[in-house]
């Protein structure tokens, strides 16, 4: 096993530990676990960044140098990386650790899938001709920052619904530690906005790339189509909020539906015939 994949499989456990600490904090209500969760997540992020750089360097040593964004394994790793990075930025900006228990587990799952699924090869592979493009990096980076923002919005939506459940039944004491619903709603909206802008950029960079690789900026390939479907869902969500003033529960549900569409755009499309089969 090459060093970078070893580090990355350890990072999986680091994110698992961080998730557990954040969940402990939520359930026990003891602040002690919070900084621990943040610290471990940050350590994981640094190790992961290092591993990504090592992997990039490694590919050049093999004579097939390219950014580590070229297959399912690398995209999953990058997905986890963007989730943790974006989460830590938000944690630092809003000075609250409540979100951790709902977001870091997604990063752990992505890492675990990449590291332990027998269907995901961790080998560094050379780029096939269709992927040899300067647009690879900008397309993948914008798409995955979008996905990560939508993941966070989904985590916030889940928190919102859980909080609502607690207020109705007044039974779960730990739900008191979750932030107010208005704050959750506002944060979720902001994450969706960030995700929407990045998804738009991802679709644009993708069509520029398609225009130079496949001969058409839009070919209704399933992945293209599903990215459009995702875009339409979030566009509908933003319109109902802006014009109708929809808030709260409806938005929380929409952010979860939107995320399901993101997941299908990412994974489900592989089961449909199309041009994007290398991801």
């Amino acid at each position, binding site marked *: 096993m090459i060093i970078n994949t070893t580090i990355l499989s350890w990072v999986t456990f680091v994110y698992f530990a961080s998730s557990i600490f954040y969940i402990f904090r939520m359930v026990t209500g003891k602040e002690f676990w919070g900084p621990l969760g943040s610290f471990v997540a940050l350590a994981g992020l640094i190790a992961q960044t290092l591993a990504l750089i090592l992997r990039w360097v490694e590919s050049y040593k093999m004579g097939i140098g390219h950014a580590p964004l070229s297959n399912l394994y690398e995209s999953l790793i990058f997905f986890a990386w963007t989730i943790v990075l974006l989460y830590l930025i938000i944690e630092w900006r809003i000075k609250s650790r409540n979100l951790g228990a709902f977001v870091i587990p997604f990063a752990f799952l992505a890492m675990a899938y990449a590291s332990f699924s027998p269907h995901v090869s961790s080998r560094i592979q050379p780029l096939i*001709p*269709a992927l040899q493009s300067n647009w690879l990096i900008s397309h993948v980076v914008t798409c995955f920052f979008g996905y990560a923002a939508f993941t966070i919005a989904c985590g916030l939506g889940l928190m919102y619904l859980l909080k609502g459940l607690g207020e109705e039944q007044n039974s779960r004491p730990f739900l008191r530690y979750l932030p107010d619903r208005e704050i959750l709603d506002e944060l979720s909206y902001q994450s969706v906005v960030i995700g929407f802008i990045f998804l738009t950029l991802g679709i644009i960079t993708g069509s520029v790339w398609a225009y*130079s690789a496949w*001969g058409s*900026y839009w070919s*209704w390939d399933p992945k293209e189509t599903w990215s459009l479907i995702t875009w339409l869902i979030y566009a509908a969500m933003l319109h109902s909020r802006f014009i109708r003033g929809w808030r709260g529960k409806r938005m929380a549900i929409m952010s979860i539906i939107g995320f399901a569409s993101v997941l299908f755009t990412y994974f489900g499309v592989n089961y449909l015939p199309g041009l994007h089969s290398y991801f």
Partner: protein
Amino acid sequence: MKKTVLSLFSSLKLTIGLLIIIALASVLGTIIPQQYEGGESFRHLSPGLIRAFKSLQLVDMYHSVWFVILMGLLSLNLIVCSLNRFPTSWRLFRKIPSLDRGKPFENLSPDNVLVIERKRNEVIERVENLLRRRYKRVRRRETASTTSFYGEKGAYSHFGVYIIHASILIVIAGAIIGSLFGFDAFVNIPEGESTNVVSLRRQKGIKELDFTVRCDKFSIAYYENGMPKEYRSNLSFLKNNKAIYQGPLLVNHPVTFNGIRFYQASYGSVPGGQAYITIQKGDGQETTVTVKLGDSFYLREKDAKATIGRIEENLMSMGPAVLLNIQSSDGNMRLWVFKEIEKIRKGIPELLKKVPKFDPGLFKPYYFKLNKIENKYYTGLQLSHDPGVSSVAGGSFLIIPGLIITFFSSHRRLWVRLDEQEGKTRVLVSATSNRDPVGLKREIERLLKLLKKAEVVV
């Protein structure tokens, strides 16, 4: 009547309904195999189902009449909504509210009130300068007991949404231009040959180009692990038999000639390749021949003739192979000669017994060896002419500032009132914003801090 149609098209319900219907229709299009993806995926569908899909135009759904109508309705909805709302936005952008309105100061939070230990006329200029530096269109009105200010910033934020809608319409317009005046075509050209006739993809039929394309050479390069590294066509573009442009065509590096873009799309083998075959006779003597498809050579000992039936680069994943049709007095025989026969024999020892025609020693006393084959390729080119691309690109580019203005700017309006009580000045600050209440709150806090400073310096 006119009014109800207009109000239907300006309703948000229609927008959201259309967005959801288009999303669902698109889902359908990714599940039902589409015609241009090739017949492959149709095979496991029943004929009745295929007929049903075809009559509902589901097999080329994204170009079907009803999908185009849906997109048309969405565009119409977009236009009507935007036109409907624009005058309101314009008013909000232009109009300066009256300065002495009392309403902004009703129920004002005590946090928004500041007391400066100076007389009102000592601080008016200072406050005005401060506001002028930070806000646009600052106005001032004096009464006997109060001074009122109004200022604003970010009024342009009302237009962000129109920029987005306009850019989407520009993209759709580009797509329409492309589908009306553009074309997609493909052509396969064997190495060394040329053509000026290409097959149209969507409109069907053929198209004659006013120039000729020649494929001088096609080559594939591989990585060490066998994955393809590069597909390269060396093309010449000719007019009146004179080469105007010559150059390589690679994936991701299209070539444009006469307004038509050429893409490296596929490749394949054509007859015309060469095979190098060694013939071992009964006495162990060897001769080597170089043959093309259809060539034959004479096998004297048996008075037989062997003709090359096929030259395959990779037969049944067992590597290069050549088909020999052998005619002799004993009758006809077909024989496949593999290059990697030793490897195959090791891998599947019983294969030659089961499939005698794979045995290179079947036609005794001869033994055939395939040394190598040299393939002749054709290159598969995709051609595209799309006059709508610049419009699509322009729209895509414009949507980015539109999104940034819509989501990250806000129209903040500020009312400041000064009144004097017992030699001190009371400063009341009130503000509204069309978006981002948190940002507004922070801004007021900052402003109050700056206003407080007006007290210190003279």
